[in-house]
């Protein structure tokens, strides 16, 4: 069964229009037209008539959960969420950045999404690889079944097999490419800090110039700030103008976290964020 993007788009428009007409929400975070069909953009519908501008196709990769924290607390909003995006919403609910009752989640079951920059199909290599939203109020299509179930951590095997020196050399080479545009953190739904540690200068945590020391400081810290929080949407890596495979590091940390604490990020609103939830029977592996 192929995904009918057109059908999802139509349902998205109808739902958005209805929600805005009844005043149930004051805005709908979805997708709109970009400069061509392959480049749709995040879009905010505020009036019922705006709903006509909503689009949905395989290039609508952006994680709309990223935008929720931009609006004042208590804003009633509807959010179009694909699988990973819904996990971001859950994680943000756990972190008390948004409230479940303020949200209407328009779930989008999908696979075969494409990276607008490279045209590559997005799968479990660069994302969590789920097909259905974990949390939603309305599902705008049929649940996906029968697609291959691949662990999002499979891609790590070849890097885990490297010895320490080779792995360090790999990351040094990758991170040396970084131009410090911060598109990665800005595209990330979980990087909502203001100011981000790397922008602080009293104390100054890391250098601003794009050289090894500062790049390592920025990235290693960011990877760890995302521990147990990254929901593997892959947005950071897609946002990166120089194609640094940031997702690999995030996946590794997520995998370790899951192994140690038996909880993946953003899977249930009942969970507490794993790193702030102390349990007596917690793994001590982290201290080893």
């Amino acid at each position, binding site marked *: 069964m192929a995904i009918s993007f057109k059908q999802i788009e139509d349902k998205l428009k109808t739902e958005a229009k209805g929600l805005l007409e009844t005043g149930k929400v004051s805005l709908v975070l979805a997708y709109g037209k970009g400069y061509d069909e392959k480049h749709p953009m995040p879009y905010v519908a505020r009036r019922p008539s705006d709903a006509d501008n909503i689009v949905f196709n395989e290039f609508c990769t952006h994680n709309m959960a990223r935008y929720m924290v931009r609006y004042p607390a208590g804003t009633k909003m509807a959010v179009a969420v694909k699988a990973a995006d819904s996990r971001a919403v859950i994680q943000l609910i756990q972190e008390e950045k948004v409230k479940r009752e303020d949200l209407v989640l328009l779930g989008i079951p999908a696979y075969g999404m494409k990276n607008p920059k490279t045209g590559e199909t997005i799968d479990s290599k660069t994302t969590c690889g789920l097909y259905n939203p974990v949390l939603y109020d309305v599902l705008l299509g049929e649940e996906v079944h029968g697609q291959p179930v691949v662990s999002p951590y499979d891609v790590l095997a070849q890097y885990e097999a490297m010895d320490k020196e080779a792995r360090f050399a790999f990351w040094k080479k990758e991170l040396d490419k970084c131009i410090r545009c911060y598109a990665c953190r800005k*595209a990330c739904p979980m990087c909502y800090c*203001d100011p981000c540690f790397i922008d602080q200068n009293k104390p100054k945590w890391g250098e601003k110039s794009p050289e090894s020391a500062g790049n390592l400081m920025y990235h290693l810290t960011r990877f760890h700030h995302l521990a147990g929080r990254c929901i593997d949407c892959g947005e950071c890596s897609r946002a990166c*103008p120089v194609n640094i495979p940031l997702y690999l590091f995030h996946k590794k940390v997520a995998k370790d976290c899951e192994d140690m604490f038996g909880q993946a990020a953003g899977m249930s609103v009942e969970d507490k964020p794993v790193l702030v939830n102390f349990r007596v029977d917690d793994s001590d592996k982290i201290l080893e």
Partner: protein
Amino acid sequence: MLKKTAINKATELAAALMEKGTLIAPVKEDAGFNFREISDAKQVDLNFHNTIISPKSAFFPQTEDFVRYQTGKSILEATPVELNIKPAFLFGVRPCDVKSFEIMDIHFSGTGLVDPYWQKRREATTVFGYAFDLDKPAEAEEFYQTLGIGAADPEGSDIFMVKKDNDLLMKAITPRGEKLLTGLNIPSEASADDEKYFDDTVAAGRNFKTRSTCVDARATAKKFEDLFHNTDFWEKMSHACLSCGACTFVCPTCYCFDICDETLFSRGTRRRVWDACMFTDFTLEASGHNPRTKVYQRLRQKVCHKYSYHVRKYGVISCVGCGRCTRYCPVNIDIFSIVEEAVKA
């Protein structure tokens, strides 16, 4: 003077240039092409459309060291970093990017306040412009032609290159280019047929379509002035914007920088590093006050600086339509669409 060389002999040409100075040319990397200082002539790869980062970094590197010092020691012991500039060749620059140098010259030397780092590198560098391939349509992101820049404009280059089948035609445009080309023993003389091909390409480049709307600099600048207080308009234009630095860092005409002191143990360096008006802390004042706290204010600054303030002050738009900002924007914001929306508004 017009000379030619086989494209597959570009390595020999590169090697000849490397004997005379530093060669900066397109190199293929994981994510795409970038201008890099060449250490092995074989790295030079002309099989590119355009680079990720603009060639401005040849004159205005992302990091530039000014002074080195030891913390805890007297300032008198600090040593300025010598500007050790050698003759350089910037090879394979697309016409829109060549145009950007002229715009950047306004800021780094043209107003009377001279930035020696930019200016000395400019003076020491011979620019080899390179026409876009007119057999392929322009990419969707580009719009240089609508800003009056042809796909094969030789102006601004010292030597301009046009690809003809498997050959590279090279024409001297300035006396500096003439001198260099005469002294290069690699390319052979071109025929009358080649001369015609070169001129035809330059002419065809002027009509090579990028996007359809035409931009009148003065009228657009005025329009943006009128729209300044239209918060609705700017919020609409910016609701997708992440306020990152991707668009400004890849842009050939963005020239903002920050001066930082960076120390490793007791060794310190005062340096400048690219900065961007899209960053939250760009306008953060020492008092803690920030006049641009909202994303729309920052995007408005970026667009209006290029299309309005710059026109009012210097008479030209500070954008060359290379399309990099659009291509690398993580959320597909297209500066030209904003200009079109403004004109319509």
